């Protein structure tokens, strides 16, 4: 209504135009277009988000409850982002206290918003309840205006449909591949699928804990005698063994040394973005519950960036408190200038460690 009035004011009739030859009031026309733009973009203070679960759950009541919970939480996140609020206020009927605290920890470091009004996703059944993946987010650093790009969120629910966690996903196609392999290979046991989903769930929690700067979780997840190995490229004299003149040397750290270094990195960087892709999970051939997890990691922080392979030995023998016994990092490139990549055969695997 207001828009049409402004347009009517701004654009004179053809008769007036020919009779008076007046110039169109450009200012008013510009205002009219801005109003139209605002209407067409459906600009409001923030996006209202609606989750629609299209598959994977037959209990209609539970499905609606999960949809309501995510819709409310995401809309609240958008509202808080728009208002630059320092804390997310979320009711415990939709999200557990622990999940809310964890989400607020992420919020202290990253600011994000859901970019779409309607999100349509499948529901997956997990070992503790349900899961919805693929919620599209635009992320920026909480301090400063650094854009951290696109991320997808994964939301876990308990059996009653209450949100129990909110993490950034590992590369989105991985879960689909996991789901597909389960469907294609009839021999794939559902119990094993559940184990693998549990591992990926922890890997996602682990990955998000760097964004959250959550030293408490990292201290809890690394075993006390964890072996931490970090590779570094150094220049050496060219020889038959090192034709590029570059060599990777490895240094070991204890859990405490690693966490101390990490704590310093958390303090000195306004933001840390860790992304995992190409996740490979291998089960130990003889020890049930031990898994080797290899990921390609992209580390991007306000002061430093790198890409490399992270290999971890995860121990799920106590599924309530899984632990990491080994973590290694190796650079993507031995000689980036000349495009010489690390030989894939040199990436650590489960077979490299005596357990």
């Amino acid at each position, binding site marked *: 209504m207001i828009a049409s009035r402004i347009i009517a004011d701004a654009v004179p009739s053809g008769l007036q135009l020919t009779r008076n030859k007046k110039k169109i009031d450009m200012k008013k026309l510009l205002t009219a*277009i801005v109003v*139209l733009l605002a209407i067409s973009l459906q600009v409001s203070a923030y996006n209202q988000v609606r989750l629609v679960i299209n598959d994977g759950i037959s209990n209609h009541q539970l499905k609606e409850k999960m949809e309501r919970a995510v819709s409310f939480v995401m809309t609240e996140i958008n509202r808080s982002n728009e208002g630059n609020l320092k804390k997310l206020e979320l009711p415990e009927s939709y999200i557990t206290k622990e999940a809310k605290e964890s989400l607020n920890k992420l919020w202290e470091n990253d600011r994000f918003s859901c970019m779409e009004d309607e999100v*349509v996703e499948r529901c997956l059944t997990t070992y503790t309840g349900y899961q919805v993946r693929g919620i599209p987010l*635009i992320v920026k650093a909480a301090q400063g205006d650094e*854009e951290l*790009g*696109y991320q997808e969120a994964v939301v876990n629910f308990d059996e009653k449909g209450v949100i129990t966690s909110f993490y950034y996903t590992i590369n989105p*196609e991985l879960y*689909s591949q996991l789901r597909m392999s389960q469907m*294609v290979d009839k021999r794939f046991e559902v119990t094993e699928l559940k184990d693998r989903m549990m591992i990926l769930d922890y890997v996602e929690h682990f990955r998000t804990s760097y964004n959250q700067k959550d030293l408490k979780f990292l201290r809890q997840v690394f075993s006390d005698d964890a072996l931490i190995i970090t590779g570094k490229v150094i220049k050496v004299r060219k020889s038959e063994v090192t034709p590029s003149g570059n060599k990777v040397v490895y240094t070991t750290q204890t859990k405490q040394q690693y966490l101390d270094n990490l704590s310093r990195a958390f303090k000195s960087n306004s933001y840390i973005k860790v992304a995992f892709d190409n996740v490979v999970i291998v089960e130990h051939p003889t020890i049930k519950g031990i898994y080797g997890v290899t990921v390609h990691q992209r580390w991007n922080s306000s002061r430093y960036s790198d890409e490399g392979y992270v290999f971890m030995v995860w121990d799920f023998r106590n599924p309530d408190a899984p632990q990491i016994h080994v973590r290694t990092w190796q650079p993507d490139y031995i000689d980036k200038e000349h495009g010489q990549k690390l030989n894939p055969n040199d990436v650590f695997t489960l077979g490299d460690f005596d357990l």
Partner: protein
Amino acid sequence: MKRTTTILMLLCMVLTAGALDKRQTQINSIKKSKEYLYSDITMRTPEDATSQALDLLHQEILAWASDRVDKEIDNYPSPVEINKVIDTIMVRRADMYRVFAYVKKFNLIPLFNKWDMVLLEDYDTDEGNVSEDIHEDEEIIIPEEPKDSVVGEKIRALLKNNFLGKKGGVIEQIKKAKNFFELKQIMEPLKEKGEITDYGKYATAEKPEDCYLVVYDPAGNIKAILGKGENVRQNLKTGKDDSIKNYRGCGAIWFTINEK
């Protein structure tokens, strides 16, 4: 002048936002409908996203098909055959590319025609509400109520394609490519089968006038398929006269058909 430019820019923003919103609505409509299988991938490059989305949808199709028969399936259709019935939508998501690949289950009937009855059940349980503009995009219209034959017009239309000459068949297959990346996936098998004798980038064509051309824009979207000729070529999508000169700033892939 400055004001006019500003106004034009604002109008462009309105139109772009509208188009994005329409594609988003279309994707959500398909996801909500049980008539479709789909994959939805967001990755750092359009090539990775396209390849991953197609790969996942292939797996989804094969899994869906194998769920509908008790015995082991030994005659899966080839990826090229599957690609013919797949459509894709690409949109930017901040610094990444989203590729949504989808296929109507009904369109899989020609590939898996022994499962007609099961496919009908899929339709009976459909609760989705797909917007009409999706149907407008399809090249072959599916009858709303299949009568004596489950296969209906869709299969008849596809069978008709098989009776076209070799040239028509090749062109029809190439027309299915929506972008540069899908094109390569279609071209290579055609070359292996000997249906096209060769293909390459425009600059490498020895006698361009003897080659068919697939024209693509800088984003990799296919803009036109042009027949042989020098200045004037037939646009094989519209049937009208066209020229390579009408596609400044675009690239082209040439190919030659084995017409023996």
